[in-house]
């Protein structure tokens, strides 16, 4: 049993970790752009905002499995294959990126308008306001948002297992569903639950620890 669970767990952790990193790299700037380019933002660009907003909505409307299949060619281009844990990171990151953008957007929007106005009143540039005021002030909320993202990607990664992505989801389906080894399926699901609980617990702890408000 353990020799099945441990490698699958490692695969899931590997997949989730890199997908989180890449989806943040893609989604975080999009979230920041959404906030600063909207009407009344510190870098008002209505057209750019509308394009970004529309694209994110379209991407988020795709069912994850469909998006993953659609992105197979891209996986092949980047990692050379479409099956396996590493290949799955590509669609996972891209699927999660628009979600990340929305999460980051809503966290940044919570920042008190007054401190942004203060930044403008002392002649801060747009990048200075973003990096020295907006992001530090939103930090606790951003951490909660990133936690939410990780939990979501764990869920996605389990689904990705069904189409050859590997990890705990794959294990649960292959052994539990196809070979009727219910015990392995139960253990795999329990491990996923523990993983989600652990991530959420750590995220909550960290966010409340750094929040000085």
């Amino acid at each position, binding site marked *: 049993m353990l020799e099945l669970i441990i490698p699958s767990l490692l695969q899931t952790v590997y997949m989730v970790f890199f997908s989180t990193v890449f989806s943040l790299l893609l989604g975080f700037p999009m979230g920041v752009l959404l906030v600063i380019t909207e009407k009344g933002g510190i870098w008002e660009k209505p057209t750019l905002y509308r394009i970004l907003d529309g694209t994110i909505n379209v991407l988020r409307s795709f069912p994850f499995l469909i998006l993953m299949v659609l992105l197979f060619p891209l996986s092949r281009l980047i990692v050379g294959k479409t099956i396996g844990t590493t290949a799955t990171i590509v669609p996972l990151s891209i699927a999660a990126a628009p979600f990340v953008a929305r999460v980051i957007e809503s966290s940044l929007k919570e920042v*008190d308008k*007054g401190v942004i106005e203060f930044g403008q*009143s002392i002649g801060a540039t747009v990048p200075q306001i973003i990096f020295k005021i907006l992001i530090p002030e939103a930090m606790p909320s951003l951490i909660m948002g990133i936690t939410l993202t990780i939990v979501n990607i764990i869920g996605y990664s389990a689904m990705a297992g069904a189409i050859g992505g590997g990890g705990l989801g794959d294990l649960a389906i292959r052994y539990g569903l196809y070979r009727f080894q219910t015990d392995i399926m139960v253990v795999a699901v329990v491990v996923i639950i523990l993983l989600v609980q652990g991530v959420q617990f750590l995220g909550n702890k960290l966010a409340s620890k*750094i929040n*000085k408000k």
Partner: protein
Amino acid sequence: MIEVQNLSKCFQNGNECIWAIKNVSLHINRGEIFGVIGLSGAGKSTLIRCLNRLEEPTEGKIIIDGVDMTSLDKRELRARRKDIAMIFQHFNLLAQKTTYENIALPLELAGLGRKEIDTRVNELLEYVGLKDKKNAYPSQLSGGQKQRVAIARALANNPKILLSDEATSALDPKTTKSILELLKRIRDELGLTIVMITHQIEVVKDICDRVAIMENGEIVEINTVKELFRRPKSKTARAFIGSLKSDVQEEFIISEEFKGKVVRLSFWGENAKKPIVSHVIKQFNIDVNILSGNISQLMSTSAGHLIVELVGEDEKIQAAMDYLRNQDIEVEVI
């Protein structure tokens, strides 16, 4: 120092234009504490926010230190804003940063080194009296302390002008006084020009040299504070002064300026309803000139006071005062 010429600001609401300020002109001298008072919606906040172009003026010019603010591009404007600090009603401190970090922020943004920042922040902490709160977060500070942090932060880059947008409106009267004293000290010691937006006449009275009274986006009166309290020209000014407690008004009655004896009469209960003043005039053959007064209804009885000038021969005035005292009226010579 600050010259505002025919400034107007319209807020677009669909196709409609709502004029928040209309054709405002004023001149503020270097080192002056200039008040702008008005009820909410009078346009005073919009006016002060036009000065550093947080709000873009629709028409008119703002000339600060010889530079036309309205002609600056974004880059020049940012550079100029470093000379024009601002404090706010709700302090606008960064909640996730300590007192020290809040004050250090403008210095950091200006590109100073860590050592220089440290020296300057400690200097400022000392100046506003918050040395012991260096590592506290805003949530651990009182309103007055938060405004002190905001003031220290505003002073960090040695500005020439301080704009105060209702900076004491969220504070209790005692804290307000201490913040006003600090602002006065800043003007006296550092030579800043201060523009104070407020709806509190007490603030104007306590620290302003001159004041503009705004109503419906227009300035209805510009006056020195002294003159304003003695001879307000506009109805709005009179209403503001009337809202002050009368013992505050008394401070503006200078007894030396009157020929006769200036006294304060305090009375309560039945006395408040008797025609005592007219008795005194008839009985003692002196003139009584009423300078200020008020009667308030307290529970079921009334209490009040009058400030009067008694003009006549000394012994007659003395006799009149004795008479008043016999009537259970408190007589106090100012």
